[in-house]
């Protein structure tokens, strides 16, 4: 699959209803919370709109002269009451703000966590073809930044829209109640505000996205500049590289300034339009006041409204433009959630034997380890045939070595055996039965698997070994470590089995990681064992140590060994030389050497190399 597929495609056409509908399903269980949130945001809008009204009232009643009993006086008798009411409103308003943030935060955190969890759960059901074709970074981005942006839009986005709309609504209602003429004049700036806001917000978002894109290129350039620094020096490329980098950083500056200029125009525009509103109110309202048709309090109310109106409107515009990128995030996340696994257990199989969620172990039959490939054909999606009409019969307990060039098909055989992929046609039998008659988990919990680059999980050594058998006791873990000769080095480390291995096992050497991965593989007492180039990445010294671990590990199990190092495989029962998906030569080490064919020349070259490095190493 081409990598272009995973380029961030950020622009989607118009409003995509189906995507949002799918998103709403995640919100459905928080219906009550949403209702509360909307109610609060409406109350908050009322409160905000009430303030100017109250102040206008105070101006008219406490500041302006009142005509009472035939004379103009200032009457403060209502002030204590007013203060109580205003204080109540302030407390109410603050409480609403508190609840507003609380609820939006709650919904954001919950929905984000829910979507993330379903996405992760779904990942575990997807097949290998998905992982082989999808960069890890892409998956990571879906479950982090995209999910975050979804969470934001359904909480803050939704609440801001409701709040903004109602604020505008109450402003309008109150204005009309107070004075229809001025209200009519003031609301003329609404559509202008909205159009300008929406226009700019959209453009600003786009400009920001542009600069973010360049930014990720800059990160890439740093990465290349740092990892390639040695080569750069030998080629004297420093100057050229820097020129190219300057092109990028210059582009970034240009794009950022462009975005900033847009915001720089937008905000003053909003201020200016607000100013127009106030000016209109002052002009028109003032004329009416002069004519005696309006109190100063009312004028004050309108001035305040006109001043504040831009706030909810630009908020709405901002959310609307954010919705576009949120929609793109949602689409990408939904595409992950909707990817179909290539390999699924049949419903009747799940019925009888369970699946990875609810394995019905009691119904499982024990695997003895006979493996048969019957007329297996296989090709990866949209690619050439890797295996055609492949046949192989392996007795229980037999040790099979696979030898061949990269791309010969030996890894594919392993992938099929582990049911990471399934044959396109033909079948693979375990103990004489097509493995599709059982759930994937049945075979996979009976596998011991050791990879070329041992993959450990963050946590302690104990936890890592226990990964192979979750029910293992501490004693069993120690036994397993002893079997593979890992016990001594483990005990030599400060905290023994409770030593933290670091992220991905980074605190251990490759050899140590490999030993632990062997211990992890045998602790589950698997019937079938797979060593996938398990020793090619370690030095001779470590290999010699591991060698004995390997023999102990393989004892009595059906084993498949893929290896570069021929010393590892000469003791196997049968060696298969694979080329272009076919078995070129097959037999024991001796038989194959006697044939003087491919194996012979491979082995000789390899052995020479290994011997030489051994002698050189002894020398130093």
């Amino acid at each position, binding site marked *: 699959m081409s990598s272009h597929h995973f380029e961030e495609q950020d622009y989607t056409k118009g409003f995509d209803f189906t995507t949002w509908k799918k998103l709403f399903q995640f919100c459905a269980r928080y219906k009550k919370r949403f209702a509360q949130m909307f109610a609060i945001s409406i109350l908050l809008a009322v409160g905000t709109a009430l303030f100017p009204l109250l102040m206008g009232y105070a101006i008219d009643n406490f500041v302006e002269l009142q005509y009472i009993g035939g004379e103009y006086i200032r009457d403060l008798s209502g002030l204590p009451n007013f203060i109580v009411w205003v204080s109540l409103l302030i407390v109410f308003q603050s409480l609403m703000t508190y609840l507003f943030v609380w609820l939006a935060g709650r919904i954001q*955190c919950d929905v984000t966590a829910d979507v993330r969890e379903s996405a992760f759960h779904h990942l575990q059901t997807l097949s290998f073809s998905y992982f082989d074709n999808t960069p890890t970074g892409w998956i990571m981005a879906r479950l982090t930044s995209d999910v975050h942006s979804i969470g934001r839009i359904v909480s803050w986005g939704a609440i801001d829209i409701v709040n903004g709309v109602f604020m505008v609504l109450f402003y309008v209602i109150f204005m009309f109640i107070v004075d229809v003429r001025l209200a009519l004049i003031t609301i003329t700036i609404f559509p202008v505000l909205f159009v300008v806001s929406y226009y700019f917000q959209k453009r600003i978002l786009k400009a920001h996205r542009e600069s973010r894109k360049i930014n990720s290129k800059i990160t890439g350039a740093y990465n290349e500049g740092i990892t390639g620094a040695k*080569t750069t020096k030998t080629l004297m490329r420093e100057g050229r590289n820097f020129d190219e980098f300057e092109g990028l950083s210059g582009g970034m500056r240009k794009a950022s300034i462009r975005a*900033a200029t847009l915001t720089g125009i937008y*905000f003053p525009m909003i201020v200016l339009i607000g*100013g127009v509103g106030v000016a209109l109110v002052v002009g028109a309202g003032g004329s009416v006041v002069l004519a005696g048709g309006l109190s100063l309090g009312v004028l004050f109310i309108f001035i305040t409204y006109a001043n504040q109106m831009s706030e909810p409107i630009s908020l709405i515009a901002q959310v609307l433009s954010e919705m576009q990128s949120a929609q793109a995030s949602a689409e990408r996340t939904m595409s992950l959630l909707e990817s179909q696994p290539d390999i699924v257990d049949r419903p009747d199989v799940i019925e009888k034997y369970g699946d990875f969620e609810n394995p019905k172990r009691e119904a499982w039959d024990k695997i003895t380890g006979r493996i048969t490939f019957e007329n297996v054909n296989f090709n990866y999606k949209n690619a050439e045939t890797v295996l055609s009409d492949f046949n192989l019969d392996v007795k229980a307990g037999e040790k099979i070595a696979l030898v061949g060039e990269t791309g010969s098909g030996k890894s594919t055989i392993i992938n099929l055996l582990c049911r990471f992929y399934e044959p396109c046609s033909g079948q693979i039998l375990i103990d004489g039965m097509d493995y599709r008659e059982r759930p994937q988990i049945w075979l996979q919990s009976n596998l011991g698997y050791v990879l070329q680059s041992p993959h450990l999980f963050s946590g302690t050594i104990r936890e890592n070994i226990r990964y192979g058998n979750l029910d293992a006791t501490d004693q069993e873990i120690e036994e397993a470590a002893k079997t593979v000769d890992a016990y001594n080095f483990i005990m030599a480390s400060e905290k023994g089995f409770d030593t933290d291995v670091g992220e991905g096992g980074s605190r251990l050497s490759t050899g140590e990681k490999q030993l632990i991965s062997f211990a992890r593989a045998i602790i589950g007492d698997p019937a079938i064992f*797979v060593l996938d180039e398990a020793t090619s990445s370690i030095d001779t010294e470590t290999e010699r140590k591991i060698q004995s671990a390997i023999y102990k590990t393989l004892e009595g199990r059906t084993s498949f060994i893929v290896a570069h190092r021929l010393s590892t495989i000469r003791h196997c029962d049968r060696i298969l030389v694979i080329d272009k998906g076919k078995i070129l030569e097959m037999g024991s080490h001796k038989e194959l050497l006697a044939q003087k064919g491919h194996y012979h020349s491979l082995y000789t070259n390899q052995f020479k190399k290994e011997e*030489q490095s051994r002698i050189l190493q002894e020398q130093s």
Partner: protein
Amino acid sequence: MFFVAMVCSAGSAFSNFVAPLIIGITIDNVLGGLPLEQTNAFIMWVVGLFGGVEAFEGNIWLAALAYLSIVALIAIFIFGRHRMISQFGENTAKRMKDKLYDHIQKLPYNYHVHAKAGDLIQRCTADVEQVRRFLQAQTVEIGRAIFFTAFALVMMIPISATLTWVTMGFLPIIFVFSYVFFKYCRKVFKLADEKDGEMQSVLQESVTGIRVVRAFGRARFEVDKFVKKNEEFRDLDFKQMKYLSWYWGLSDLLCFAQIMTTFVVGIFLTYNGTLTLGELVIFNMFTAMVVWPVRQLGRVLSDLGRMQVAVERIYEVLDEPAETDTEGATSHDLQGDIVFQNVDFEYEEGRKVFDNLSFTVKRGETIAVLGATGSGKSTLMHILLRLYDYKSGSITINGKELRDISKEHLRHNVGMVLQEPFLYSKTIMSNLKMAKDTTNDPEVYEATKTASAHGFITEFEEGYETLVGERGTTLSGGQKQRVAIARTLIKNSQLLIFDDSLSAVDTETDAQIRQALEDNKSDATTFIISQRITTLMDADRIFVIEQGSLADHGTHEELLERGGLYKRIWEIQAMIEQDFEQEVNT
């Protein structure tokens, strides 16, 4: 630029205070019919521009226009401030990034041997971003809060000193509240960040280790693990939100209380007759203008520490000494003998790699180098390129002391292929043309044919235009080495060094490449480091390096005759085939 931005900031703050004054005058003197007693000269000037209060009385729209023109002024200042500060911030960010990139490239070879790429990238991106944000957003916030408060004081005191103190009363509280609050919350924010990191690493490990997860049937276990971390993060994240909701709720309460207190006290003052209605409105607007920036200021200041850390981290990189050249180093013809005399070299004090190394290589000779890992053979080659400088002794090329040949000249004219060469994320063609600008396609093809790379390159769908590196097709180790060899051959160097650069190529291709090199041989002096004895045996002379000294040298035959390490390796390899015969027969 920064200065202009700050002037604009002050200007907009000032205009922001003028606008309410106009409203105030309009209410009091135009609509309220009070006599004019303004003390502010500027406002009188502005009002005068529009014909004075008298004209306002005649046409209230003039007052509106006056107001609007001030708002327009505000708008212009805001634009100026924003534009200038962004340009300032972006320029600084660009300069920093450029400087970092440039400096990192110029750091010595040894630095890059030990460099941690992830951490360096973090400093170049996230830390620079932190500084940029400070310059662009936070300075504006700080400026705004300061200017607004200052102007508020200047403008308000003449109107009513009493009400001014009332207005300013809450400000310190609001500021201190914000500041202390965010200092206090930092811990929770940090915890949430860490948990986020943990969750992401569970995710990453589970995706990259999917083979292990599946092979052990641990999908369920992974889901449980992830759900646990996910929930922990959610709860901490929500804890952050809870703090924030307290913050917004309480600070709203403070800010509103401030506004209302000013208002209510103002009402009393108007009752006393010390304040007019217009002035009350002015104060009301001023208060609203000051509280929010001050609230923001507390938050910004509590965040300053992070900026400092970022700057320190950036300077840690920039303060690393860059590679320097010997003073007065010049270009020099490299076509000639290479002579080592009593050369000593050590990476660090007391750990000698070479001790008293002496030898001579004739112009045009092909020298093969054999030695164990760590014997110093790669170091020898690095010294020839002056990636490291030797401590004592003398190395001359064509009679000129190596130290006095400029690094630039040397690296331009010595072709060196590293064991793990780096290909840039460009097309294969651009990678090939990288070493020499003036090269043309036929020259490239010739080089790729010599390096046995032409074949596999043309097999790609897009041939020479295939994108390689991070975003493109992944080449195997052997393919990379062959492209790198071709890239170096194009340079037509006077000195060629292959630092174990055929290690990932199979034996037959190795032989092919060496044959082609021999056929096209110019009179370049050539060094070949290799672990394969078959690669070494055809060389003019073979150097055997043992623990930092030249243990032996000579032709294949001479070395076999003399015995020693080379002979032992050779014999054992010859014996292996006989051994196999026996093994088969027993």
